[in-house]
């Protein structure tokens, strides 16, 4: 197990060693010494990411049973399954930091830990499935690609795999939208309506503006995070604008335009009141998402109990067998 901070005289040496590893772009591994603050920050960030994968299954799952072609049904079902898989790797990464999945799930359903606020918006049409792939997964990739170089080894490795699958999902989302834009008037209207609803929330996925982001500086010093929220948000906007043009949709921001001087797009002000409201639990679907997660967890308790009881019986039988042999 990891040596803790109160272990006496070598603390300064351990800390210096940790600082050197991080500064040299090395990887911190589970058995290495790490500051408590580093461990807590990682647990908070990875758990929040894991919870986001699991809660994110709900808005997309909303359309699996109604998917309008079998190909789209297979793609969506496989995508939502991938999200369950991402949740599994990420909860496993937190286990290397000394917390288990059950504990984190309890914190999620008791609202003691957060998940990405984007999933507190409803999926109202099938075009939302395409827009989630394009914009929400697109924003997630911009956030997550730098995390493939996170200083904590298990997290960085999980992110490499997750980013590959996310980029695949993004392409599928974009391809769905291209198909709908080449389809009927009703399908094109559906896409524009979905873009209108998801664009601003997708910009909020990068978190508060740099001046209002209390954790960013420490996380960057620890090489857990690589770029500020605003840097990533800008990168996302610059990447997405030409994609929107290719698709033939309008991003709902009259102030969005290329700035020659900055060599970047200017864009309008984000409604931070709405952001804070959703973060604090008053978004369109917060209560519904948590109630649904809680119901699944509680309805599954008897199944998990049975698996534990059965494993204990099997172990007892094996040791009885070994003794009588």
């Amino acid at each position, binding site marked *: 197990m990891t040596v803790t901070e109160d272990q006496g005289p070598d603390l300064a040496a351990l800390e210096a060693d940790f600082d050197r590893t991080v500064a040299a772009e090395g990887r911190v591994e589970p058995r290495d010494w790490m500051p408590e603050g580093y461990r807590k920050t990682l647990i908070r960030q990875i758990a929040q990411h894991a919870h986001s994968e699991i809660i994110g299954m709900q808005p997309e799952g909303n359309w699996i049973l109604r998917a309008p072609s079998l190909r789209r049904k297979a793609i969506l079902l496989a995508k939502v399954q991938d999200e369950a898989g991402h949740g599994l790797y990420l909860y496993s990464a937190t286990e290397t930091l000394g917390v288990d999945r059950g504990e984190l799930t309890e914190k999620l359903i008791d609202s003691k830990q957060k998940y990405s606020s984007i999933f507190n918006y409803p999926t109202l049409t099938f075009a939302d499935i395409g827009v989630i792939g394009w914009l929400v997964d697109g924003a997630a990739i911009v956030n997550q690609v*730098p995390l493939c170089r996170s200083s904590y080894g298990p997290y960085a490795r999980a992110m490499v795999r997750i980013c590959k699958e996310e980029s*695949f999902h993004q392409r599928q989302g974009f391809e769905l939208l291209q198909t709908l834009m080449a389809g009927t008037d009703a399908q094109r209207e559906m896409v524009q309506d979905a873009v209108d609803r998801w664009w601003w929330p997708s910009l909020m996925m990068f978190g508060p503006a740099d001046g209002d982001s209390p954790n960013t500086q420490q996380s960057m010093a620890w090489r857990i995070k690589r770029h500020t929220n605003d840097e990533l948000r800008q990168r996302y906007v610059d990447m997405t604008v030409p994609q929107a043009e290719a698709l033939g949709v309008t991003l709902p921001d009259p102030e969005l335009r290329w700035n020659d001087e900055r060599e970047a797009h200017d864009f309008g002000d984000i409604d931070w009141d709405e952001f804070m409201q959703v973060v604090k639990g008053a978004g369109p679907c917060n209560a519904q998402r948590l109630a649904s997660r809680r119901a699944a967890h509680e309805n599954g308790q008897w199944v998990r*109990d049975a698996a534990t009881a059965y494993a204990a019986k099997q172990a007892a039988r094996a040791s009885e067998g070994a003794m009588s042999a």
Partner: protein
Amino acid sequence: MDTHSPHPGHDENVYDALSTADDDGRWAFGTGFDAGDAEITAPAPEGVDRADVATYCLMLADDALIASQRLAGWTAKAPELEEEVALANIALDLLGQARVLLSRAGHLGAAEPYRVGPQDDEDVLTYFRDDRAFRNVTLAETDLGDFGRTIAWILVFAAWRLALMQRLTGSRDPVLAAVAGKAVKELTYHRDYAAQWVLRLGDGTELSHARMQAGLDGVWPHVEELFLAHDVERRLVEAGVAVDPAELRGDVDAVVAQVLPAATLTRPETPAVGLVGGRGGRDGVHTEALGGVLALMQSLARAHPGATW
């Protein structure tokens, strides 16, 4: 690690590598078309009625399609993440089987009476047929209930379909034989997954034992129908294309006889559900459950009959 190991200061390169990685194989995930695409267009075996083969493909397709739809209802509701992944796997396997069989049925002419727009055969048959034209056994459409009942349902359905597909690998129809070859591997996993959970739940806690037994009792009334042969099946058995459902009883009984006692459960004695004037799911006479399943599944596609997606 892998070939995408990132280097400091090269985020953009990492992103490029991720977004241009050759994932093309995964576009076909769950479609099941990778092995048998060319064969979909094979003619029906000589001397065999084309419409019969089409109907038989629909029977086996509808079993898988409706079962997959039911299983997909577990999304985001499973007792543990591992079960979330496993149930989705089973649903995807069955959906893949259904898609090849529906395309085969369509190639043999089954989609034409239902065509209203530009959709592929598999979607015409899925979204624009009414419940009386669905040929699945009623087990496939029953409510999955709690996890215990779902596990009982998977055990019975997979044991039965596995026995069927094992025999169907020898079919004179090349598409049926190819589908069966792939399905055998998939269904073996489904059966074993369910059997392991039957053991855990049956021999777990008092509560899980009771729920597992109740789940078995609940699905049992739909088991008898699995062994009834329809006239189309009888004719195709003669022609060496189809499997006689009556032959499958022994295999299903053997699985049940092996798993239930080990799980401290008893074989249910609940009576079989009655047929309607001698007709059941294979004749298009279903339980009340199917109408609800189809209403949800078909709603969006039917709201846009001229659209493809």
